């Protein structure tokens, strides 16, 4: 049994200590939200493997070190270090909007907002300090604050993050990159980035969240993104979890979709000793659709968990889940794909697929489809395969002169390719494809890059 230095009491006393310094602390509704969150956390405590939703992920090792909160003004980063870390974030070019956060706090000097009509891009802290009531309709509205300890803590401690607000009828052409950098601080720490992404009627945008860390950094990133898509809105969202191998990462993507809206989501999991990424989508309006794709590739004795929940709350909604896992050494990958079709939600299409490739002898893949269907006019399927590298394919590549290492890298890249294919625009897809190839090449080599 892992002992943890972070008891409920530790977080409660940290909260009392820092609450007065958190963004928007003067605002009544936000104080109430934080208080409720803290109460929910005190009630529930941390999840254990006895909780059905956490059956295959023991998150307690993430809490083994005493994790200190980080306040704005307490961070600094060397320019060359920052540059190197930004270099790990794929697809950023000079035309991209870029918000950078260091140990959870907005770093204005490295950020740049490309001006575009109908786009408002700012840090959460800035928005909460200048105009807190503006965020009240969204912040904590769809994310179930008490879903578990981590969503509760994220809400109680929310202080900074990105707010991407896109007005009705706006097409934002350039991808918006959000980069969360974690440094090697004197003591292990926790950050709670909270993002709000609102896309107006008929608007469209691309947002990419990158989580990177210095190699020896010890921390927990506990992040949550709330996404609201209005009627006919389209969002291409990607998240790249490429944290330090000593770090822990817990994330929740909460998406609310109105009629006719569409979400194309990509989640990549490469880093962290232990990570849990939740994607929860409510298809609340007719003809709303989401495509949730993911790729995780880890090695050593690391652990990665992706937990998807799609709620078909309206008729004629469609969802597709494609998550692929590559597990080297004795790593462990967990996938849960939950699909709920509510009574009265007819003409539903829900597809799910979770193939895993076990490269290491001790690697383990857990795959759990969970279908709860209360309507009858539903087209639904799911499939999961767990396999090893194909011997015939391997021999074919060797017989053409590729050495075993290159042949293996090529086969794993081929396995992963299907996940990356759906990314737009093409330059971003190419950049992410290249990054995937590099991360796959690093597997089993201690992550040396």
């Amino acid at each position, binding site marked *: 049994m892992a002992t943890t230095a972070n008891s409920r009491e530790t977080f409660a006393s940290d909260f009392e200590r820092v609450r007065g310094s958190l963004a928007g602390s003067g605002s009544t509704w936000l104080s109430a939200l934080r208080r409720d969150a803290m109460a929910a956390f005190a009630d529930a405590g941390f999840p254990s493997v006895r909780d059905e939703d956490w059956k295959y992920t023991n998150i307690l090792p993430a809490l083994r070190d005493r994790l200190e909160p980080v306040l704005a003004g307490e961070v600094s980063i060397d320019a060359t270090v920052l540059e190197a870390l930004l270099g790990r974030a794929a697809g950023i070019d000079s035309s991209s909007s870029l918000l950078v956060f260091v140990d959870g706090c907005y770093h204005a000097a490295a950020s740049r907002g490309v001006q575009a009509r109908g786009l408002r891009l700012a840090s959460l802290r800035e928005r909460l300090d200048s105009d807190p009531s503006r965020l009240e309709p969204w912040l904590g509205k769809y994310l179930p604050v008490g879903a578990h300890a981590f969503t509760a803590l994220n809400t109680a401690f929310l202080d900074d993050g990105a707010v991407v607000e896109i007005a009705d009828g706006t097409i934002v052409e350039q991808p918006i990159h959000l980069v969360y950098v974690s440094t090697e601080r004197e003591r292990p720490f926790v950050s709670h980035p909270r993002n709000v992404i609102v896309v107006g009627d008929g608007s469209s945008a691309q947002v990419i969240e990158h989580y990177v860390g210095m190699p020896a950094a010890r921390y927990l990133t506990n992040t949550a993104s709330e996404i609201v898509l209005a009627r006919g809105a389209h969002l291409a969202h990607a998240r790249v979890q490429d944290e330090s191998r000593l770090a822990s990462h817990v994330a929740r993507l909460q998406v609310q979709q109105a009629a006719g809206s569409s979400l194309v989501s990509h989640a990549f999991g490469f880093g962290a000793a232990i990570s849990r990424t939740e994607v929860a989508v409510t298809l609340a309006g007719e003809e709303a659709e989401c495509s949730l794709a993911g790729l995780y590739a880890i090695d050593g004795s690391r652990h990665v968990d992706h937990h998807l929940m799609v709620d078909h709350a309206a008729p004629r909604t469609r969802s597709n889940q494609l998550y692929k896992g590559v597990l080297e050494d004795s790593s462990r990958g967990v996938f849960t794909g939950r699909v709920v079709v509510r009574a009265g939600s007819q003409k539903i299409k829900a597809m799910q697929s979770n193939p895993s490739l076990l490269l290491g002898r001790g690697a383990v893949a857990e795959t759990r489809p969970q279908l709860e269907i209360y309507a009858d006019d539903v087209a639904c399927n799911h499939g999961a395969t767990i396999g090893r590298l*194909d011997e*015939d*394919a391997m*021999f*074919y*590549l*060797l*017989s*053409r*002169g*590729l*050495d*075993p290492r*290159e*042949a293996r890298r*090529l*086969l794993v*890249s*081929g*396995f*992963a*390719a*299907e996940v990356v294919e759906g990314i737009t625009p093409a330059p971003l897809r190419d950049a992410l494809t290249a990054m995937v190839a590099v991360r796959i090449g690093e597997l089993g080599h201690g992550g040396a890059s």
Partner: protein
Amino acid sequence: MLSIKNLHAEIDGKAILRGLDLEVGAGEVHAIMGPNGSGKSTLAQLLAGRDVYNVTAGEVLYDGRDLLAMPADVRAREGVFLSFQYPVELPGIANSYFLKAALNAQRRHRGLPEMDAVDFLVAARARMKVVGLTEELLHRSVNEGFSGGEKKRNEIFQMAMLEPRLAILDETDSGLDVDALRTVAEGVNSLRSPDRSILLITHYQRLLDYIVPDRTHVLAGGRIVRSGGPELAHEVEDHGYKWIEEHTAA
């Protein structure tokens, strides 16, 4: 070029090759014919380095060197090429990327500079034309969704790009209609050269109407039971393998 002496090989304890002898000189084309189960494909795969076979006796020399001591990828870089009976589909790996990686791995091994994208494309276009492949197939995943004929042409296209010194063609004729067979054969014939040896492995004689071998051998029970000139193929066609075996002096 290739010298096989008393080769014995088994898989899962079952003997497949039982004392096979074969000498192929530089620039020669040899056909190996044989009934199903005679060990034809085992021979092809074993020569290319498939490691599922256990060699229990004998030796294989390639340019005087011990071929069996080399791993499959080293054999390829040393100029051995196998055209697969069943080319493998590689989803998610573009044909062009795969072939360029293979070509450059071989060029590096031979001390040649790597080929850049433009030179590669120019070379690929010319060779695809010879085997009747459209350039579009270069951008698709390797063999994925290719017709049977396209897969076989793709093998010969790869051979044309990689320019091996010893090419082993395993049932390249199977599954091809007459037009495709003719195109593939023309492709192979265009690759005949004084410093390239070719081993044609086939069940039927018809391929040998288009690619005329210097020598023909009949493989049965894991051994060469008859050797002759091109006319041997017609004897097989006329009388069948059983007759050949029965009319071979023991």
